[in-house]
């Protein structure tokens, strides 16, 4: 459903939070919970420091939930196209860049800028941009705002106790807008005590150039049929309040407005006392609070003689609107989603120590990434599908699961002489059990044995990304004196090819939509085998390289995510898993023929010790 223009936030609004603001996110979720919402209003968090990503844990009511966390805004926006709000917690140094980026994404409609101290010229550029694009900025230098029962920005509305006290979990009839963010809670409380409560409240921020003005929000409220009266809290300095007076006079604002401009005290102050707010300095008589209050009153707004009378005036106006039938009847009172007595988030919410996002054994049935085990069986999922669910949390296309199975078959064993099998055999012969035998073999898997899968994927991928030709890549590795991972074999050569590699290559060309990294590797192999005939693409290299092509073929992963999959060691996982089959085989094989303790023959060891004198010459005789 398309939202009307005057709605910035409603029950379905979700936001992307820029900045790792755990407390603010938690407060938004507390609000959501109290308001009886079924899902959280925070779609994602951007942690721009480049540090933690993946998920952030927060409580939604009693339960911990995970909210996706990214390292950049672009990814967050791409993954959450339904979110049209960015709440920008970036500091004054980077708020401009982040806000510009956010405004330029088509899916983003509103950017809230929390930072105080943005240079005025940057703010004005942002305002020009948002007007050109037909979007909204709230802030800078604000705590934000809220639509009770629907959506709340960051820290606005304060702690849980205040959300309850000011009834921010349910909708009222009053729209209010203020400059000051610090006065938001106070105003919401005052309005809830003297009327049926707040429909929407926004603090535009105390800067000289606010991203959106008091009037712009009042015009939104004017257009919103759910809002019956409006309250404005202006401030000394600037001329925004005259725009409001004009709009009332011209009939652009017809709803009842209660207004007060703060800063009436300036008349007793010496020159140029700068208030906390950047915008709050009167230049000339017209910008004083007294003059603006008078203008608003003259235009037809209800203006008290002092802030002290504002509460009573709101009540009088509200009662009057009820008497006149403009506010027909008070809304049905909605209770907040129940919170048990003695509720204290600090002590009663127990943060979990472990997160599991791949399997869940608590329900009636075991789940693999959300898929019930009965479905896995009844629908004939292969072992590749199970790996896909448990490693990648999704059932990937058939060519991926087929490849996983192919890779497992090919890497399952490579005879008794390689490191892993040898260790497993020796351990079995020493009388140890299956677990110990397999473990001793697994422990040999690493940079020299089996581990080339990861490195091959990494090196070839990076070379391609840097735009190197196969020749340049080979030359560069030569210059660095590094062997190219995934190239070279102890035994196999051009004349004596490795059948496993041939099989993988054939499969890749027959099944993969994309295979550019394999093409590149084959070109590299042509150059290296011209130098020496055993410098062929080996099985580790081929698995790693083809896997990159596979991940790209799915179209699911961005390049940095593919890098992360490689860096986590996923590809070595294929080798560990595959080779375990072989090692168990070797264990069983040894057990079957009751082999005895292995002892390596003397003649297979070259003994070369120092002389006794040489060994002792560095310790003086006592």
């Amino acid at each position, binding site marked *: 459903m398309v939202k009307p223009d005057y709605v910035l936030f409603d029950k379905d609004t979700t936001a992307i939070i820029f900045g790792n603001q755990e407390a603010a996110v938690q407060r938004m979720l507390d609000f959501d919970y109290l308001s009886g919402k079924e899902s959280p209003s925070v779609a994602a968090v951007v942690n721009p420091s480049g540090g933690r990503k993946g998920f952030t844990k927060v409580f939604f009511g009693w339960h911990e939930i995970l909210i996706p966390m990214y390292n950049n805004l672009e990814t967050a926006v791409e993954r959450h196209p339904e979110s049209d709000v960015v709440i920008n917690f970036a500091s004054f140094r980077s708020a401009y860049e982040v806000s510009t980026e956010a405004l330029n994404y088509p899916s983003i409609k509103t950017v809230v800028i929390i930072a105080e101290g943005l*240079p*005025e010229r940057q703010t004005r550029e942002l305002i020009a941009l948002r007007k050109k694009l037909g979007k909204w900025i709230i802030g800078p230098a604000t705590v934000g705002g809220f639509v009770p029962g629907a959506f709340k920005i960051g820290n606005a509305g304060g702690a849980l106790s205040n959300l309850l006290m000011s009834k921010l979990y349910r909708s009222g009839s009053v729209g209010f807008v203020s400059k000051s963010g610090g006065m938001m809670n106070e105003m919401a*409380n*005052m309005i809830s005590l003297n009327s049926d409560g707040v429909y929407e409240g926004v603090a535009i921020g105390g800067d*000289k150039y606010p991203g959106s003005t008091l009037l712009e929000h009042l015009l939104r409220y004017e257009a919103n049929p759910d809002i019956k009266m409006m309250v404005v809290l202006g401030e000394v300095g600037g001329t925004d309040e005259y725009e409001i007076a004009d709009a009332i006079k011209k009939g652009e604002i017809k709803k009842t407005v209660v207004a007060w401009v703060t800063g009436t*005290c300036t008349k007793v102050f010496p020159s140029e006392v700068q208030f906390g707010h950047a915008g709050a300095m009167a230049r000339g008589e017209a910008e004083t609070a007294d003059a603006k209050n008078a203008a608003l009153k003259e235009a037809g707004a209800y203006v008290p003689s002092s802030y002290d009378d504002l509460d009573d005036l709101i009540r009088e106006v509200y009662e009057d609107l009820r008497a006149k039938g403009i506010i027909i009847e008070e809304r049905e009172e909605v209770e907040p989603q129940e919170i048990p007595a003695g509720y204290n988030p600090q002590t009663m919410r127990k943060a979990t120590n472990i997160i599991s996002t791949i399997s869940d054994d608590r329900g009636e049935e075991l789940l693999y990434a959300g898929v019930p085990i009965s479905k896995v069986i009844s629908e004939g999922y292969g072992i590749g599908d199970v790996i896909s669910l448990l490693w990648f949390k999704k059932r990937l296309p058939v060519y991926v699961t087929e490849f996983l199975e192919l890779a497992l078959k090919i890497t399952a064993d490579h005879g008794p002489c390689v490191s892993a099998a040898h260790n497993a055999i020796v351990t079995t012969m020493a009388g140890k059990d299956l677990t110990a035998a397999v473990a001793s073999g697994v422990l040999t898997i690493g940079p020299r044995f089996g581990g080339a899968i990861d490195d091959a994927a990494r090196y070839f991928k990076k070379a391609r990304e840097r735009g190197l030709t196969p020749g340049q890549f080979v030359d560069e590795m030569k210059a660095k004196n590094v062997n190219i991972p995934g190239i070279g074999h102890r035994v196999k050569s051009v004349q004596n090819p490795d059948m496993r590699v041939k099989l993988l290559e054939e499969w890749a060309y027959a099944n993969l939509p994309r295979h550019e990294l394999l093409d590149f590797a084959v070109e590299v192999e042509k150059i290296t085998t011209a130098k020496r005939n055993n410098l062929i693409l080996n099985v580790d290299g081929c698995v790693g390289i083809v896997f990159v092509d596979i991940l790209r073929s799915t179209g699911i992963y961005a390049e940095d995510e593919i890098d992360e999959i490689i860096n986590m060691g996923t590809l070595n996982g294929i080798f560990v898993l595959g080779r375990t089959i072989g090692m168990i085989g070797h264990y069983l094989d040894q057990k079957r023929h009751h082999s005895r303790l292995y002892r390596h023959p003397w003649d297979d060891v070259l003994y070369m010790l120092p002389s006794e004198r040489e060994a002792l010459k560095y310790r003086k005789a006592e």
Partner: protein
Amino acid sequence: MAQRGIREYDAKNILAKHIERFSNGTFKYRGRVALVTPERDIESVSTDKPWLKTSKLVVKPDQLFGKRGKHGLLLMNATYSEAKNWIEEKMNSIVEVGKVRGKLTHFLIEPFIEHDKEYYLAFTGHLEGDYIHFSTEGGVDIEANWDKVTTINIPVEANIEDVDLLPILDGVNSEEGSTFRDLITALFKLYCELQFGFLEFNPFTYNADEFFPLDTVARLDDTAHFISHDDWGDIEFPVPFGRELRQEEQYIKELDDKSGSSLKLTILNPRGRVWTMVAGGGASVIYADTVVDFGFGDELATYGEYSGNPSTGETYEYAKTLLNLMTREKVEGGKVFIIGGGIANFTDVAKTFDGIINALDDYAEKIKEHGIKIYIRRGGPNYEAGLEKIRDAGQRLDLDMEVHGPDMHMTKVVAIALKNLNGGERKDGQTRLCAV
């Protein structure tokens, strides 16, 4: 913070450093300016500025106020020794400018420029762009001649190079017109890129490629310091004339500079009977307003705020500074101390109130001696605990104290306090809301 005035001396140094770059070498300004202060007299300044002793000079105070000629604070066409005597005579003297009294401490000296034409040029910002104001008849009477000033708006996203400046150069001959166009373009670019909020030359003159800003007023956007500090060089943002900081104000300012929170203090009337310590920028204004609205403006002792979740220690220092000022002079009828605030968004009320309680502990005896009644109203995170603690402290220390939470209207506490101070009368003559 915001736009803040800088000294003419600093403004001219920035001009001298950058005008060639922004005009692609078309204009230069030698920036012959010298600043004499109580710490650096004209003699010591003249060692690296030999022109002081060889040129005829103009001398004027450089303390963010204008109309110096009209106040007899402008010395023209003077020799070095005349300038020296004039400064020595005026240094540290108190003068009244408009409604403000202040001490003269900074003097700007420049070479006297013979000229026959005086022009006016100013740049001012507004929400959607910047205005260029220009007149061929600049000088002291610019306000009277404002009808001769022409103005053009440059939108924020516009490039000044592409803007036709002809409309403001109407009536200027074509040769001069092209010089002005280049000059205005260069200075406008400098104004934008160096983050000025306001820049005015009244008057300026020029000679071939040399620009002479005879009188310059400038404000910089101090929030842009992180962008422009290298271009600005070593500048200061002086306090407005007549607003030299008192020791206590200076102390709070230093506290504020070091803190991520906000601590502000302006002393209005140390003999006043109404003292406030208010949390939050918005609420602090409203409390002061209410005191003034009720007719107690002349009794309001300070304006200030503490906000942004200051630490217990910072709040303690702030409260102590106020109590120290408050307990210096006894006043007939006693005083009221209003510890106010709205409902905080994230400031921890209990934590900040711990700081206030520590200060009350220190000053309890003096508070009683001076007949100070304390009125408290606050809400926000942990307010129940905070109010409870301060209520206990009031009883323990036997202080005359009233404590209210967010169930009472924010400024009602002001009405109660003033009623007690003034026998129940609101000085503004309205009585409707005085009954509490």
